């Protein structure tokens, strides 16, 4: 089905489409399937082959062909080939190849996928490998460790020279790395284009930490920064709702919140009276339990603005506790637009702005409940 799609695509548009369809993810899968049916006869375990890897030249060729195909497509559609974006491409393809398939991933597609890198050939024509650590099997990893140890020896030599001159001081400034973290194992594997084990990764981190602890390690700062990633402050990721003004000039903001299966939306008005209405009823009537009312007041009491705002709340679904939780989240979010950034950060650290991910755990087969097992009988 998909194969016939690809073939009609190829025949219909000639050279330009065949090159773009070859980048077509559907087509690569299909062509690989076609190739693999032959090689499948030769190789028994297809899963052991691992994910497809590509050489740099192949990737570059694909990118060039994609660009050419994009320009041809733009010309075909009569549009500007310079500013032809991915959305325009998607639109054109759905116009030119209307597909009735329900599975969206099976429809015709023209997009550059992320090609995982593949190692170039590592030995010359005479069969001798280029890298001296080739026979370790993990040449990039071991060469990295080798370089790292070389750097440590260099620092120690530097320290000895300073000691000889009498200029050595124990509290020379260590590297200031800023808010950053080490590369994760996956990121390191991507960098080295090699699989490494958890043990290898731990050894690498330990050696790095060892180097950082030595005085005068600031000389190798650039090397270390290559293996660190910056951490963004979490407070920058908060979405602050808009502060609007209604007809009477009263400032208000709206926000939504969810907890388990409850949905809520809250309108926070800067009136100064402190009335709270939930689904049209007074909050004292709607939440007879003290704990739920405490949860409603929590964000307001925490910021010290108890009597200032009027709350108009709507909530549906779930039980009494999850409705209260959903309302609390909505109130905290609405409150963000009335507060400064520092206060917003304080609310986040108090746990008011995180949506609670805990949901009911499913019952598993062979057990009575989510965790409870059936009574164990010896025979």
């Amino acid at each position, binding site marked *: 089905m998909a194969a016939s799609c690809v073939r009609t695509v190829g025949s219909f548009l000639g050279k330009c489409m065949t090159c773009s369809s070859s980048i077509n993810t559907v087509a690569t899968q299909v062509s690989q399937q076609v190739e693999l049916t032959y090689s499948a006869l030769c190789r028994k375990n297809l899963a052991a082959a691992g994910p497809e890897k590509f050489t740099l030249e192949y990737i570059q060729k694909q990118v060039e062909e994609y660009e050419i195909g994009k320009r041809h497509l733009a010309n075909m559609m009569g549009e500007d080939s310079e500013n032809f974006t991915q959305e325009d491409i998607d639109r054109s393809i759905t116009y030119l190849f209307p597909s009735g398939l329900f599975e969206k991933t099976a429809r015709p597609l023209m997009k550059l996928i992320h090609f995982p890198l593949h190692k170039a050939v590592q030995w010359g024509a005479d069969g001798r490998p280029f890298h001296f650590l080739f026979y370790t099997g993990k040449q990039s990893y071991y060469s990295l460790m080798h370089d790292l140890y070389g750097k440590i020896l260099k620092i120690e030599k530097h320290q000895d020279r300073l000691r000889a001159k009498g200029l050595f001081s124990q509290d020379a400034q260590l590297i200031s790395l800023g808010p950053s973290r080490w590369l994760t194992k996956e990121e390191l594997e991507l960098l080295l284009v090699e699989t490494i084990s958890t043990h290898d990764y731990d050894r690498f981190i330990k050696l790095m930490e060892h180097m950082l602890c030595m005085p005068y390690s600031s000389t190798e700062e650039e090397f270390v920064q290559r293996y660190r990633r910056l951490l963004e402050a979490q407070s920058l990721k908060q979405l602050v709702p808009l502060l609007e003004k209604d007809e009477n000039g009263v400032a208000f903001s709206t926000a939504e919140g969810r907890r388990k299966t409850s949905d809520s939306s809250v309108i926070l008005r800067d009136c100064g009276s402190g009335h709270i209405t939930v689904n049209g009823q007074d909050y004292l009537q709607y939440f007879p339990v003290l*704990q739920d009312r405490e949860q409603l007041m929590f964000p307001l009491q925490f910021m010290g603005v108890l009597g200032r705002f009027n709350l108009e709340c709507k909530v549906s679904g779930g039980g009494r506790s999850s409705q209260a*939780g959903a309302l609390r989240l909505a109130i905290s979010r609405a409150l963000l637009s009335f507060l400064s950034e520092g206060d917003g950060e304080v609310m986040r650290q108090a746990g008011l702005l995180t949506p*609670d*991910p*805990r949901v009911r755990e499913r019952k598993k087969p062979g057990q009575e409940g989510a965790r409870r097992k059936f009574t164990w009988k010896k025979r």
Partner: protein
Amino acid sequence: MAASISGLLKPWTPRVFLVRWSRYNPYYLEPEVSKEAYSRPATELSAEEKEQRELKTLRPIKAATSGVSSSVFDDPVISKFINMMMEHGNKVLAREIMTQTLENIKKKQVEKYHKASEGEREAIECNPYTIFHQALENCKPVVGLASIQKGGKYYQVPIPLPDNRRRFLAMKWMITECRDNKHRRTHMYEKLSQELLAAFGKEGNVMKKKYELHKMAEANRAYAHYRWW
């Protein structure tokens, strides 16, 4: 770069199902609910606390549970006690019992206060929260026993207990005591207030249990070297 952490921040299910896991990624930190913790200026903090603060700005934080709030009436120890008393998820009932217990303690102490002479009045503690905390402190065991196997036999070895465990044992003994050893017609809050006042005065069954555990630990002192941690 920083965007690659977004994969770490989603509600998380481990690939291999561990026995104890939570819907939060282990990257998340616990929330700090009390207002006082944020009003302290940077000069008062030690280096560790400064580092903690730095870390909190960079890491995501878990949501606060529905049992905690920043209200002055909210006490973490009392919340823990309420959760331990709760059966089949009936938090309303457990909380009701707790409030009735505290009210009862206050009533008894105020009665005692009015009946006492001038000199004795200062010694009588009327605040039910201080009584509760002090009673729990008095009930906490200092050492516990662990069953350690050596040479085919199991020995009861005295071990130091971490703070959480001590608090848990005190609360557990208190609750079990009140559920089991009471007259058929007494309410839970009555029995609990009696026990708490007794523990405050270092008497009562719970204190007896604590002293027995201490005596056992003292008796098995000879095996203390079997502990390897």
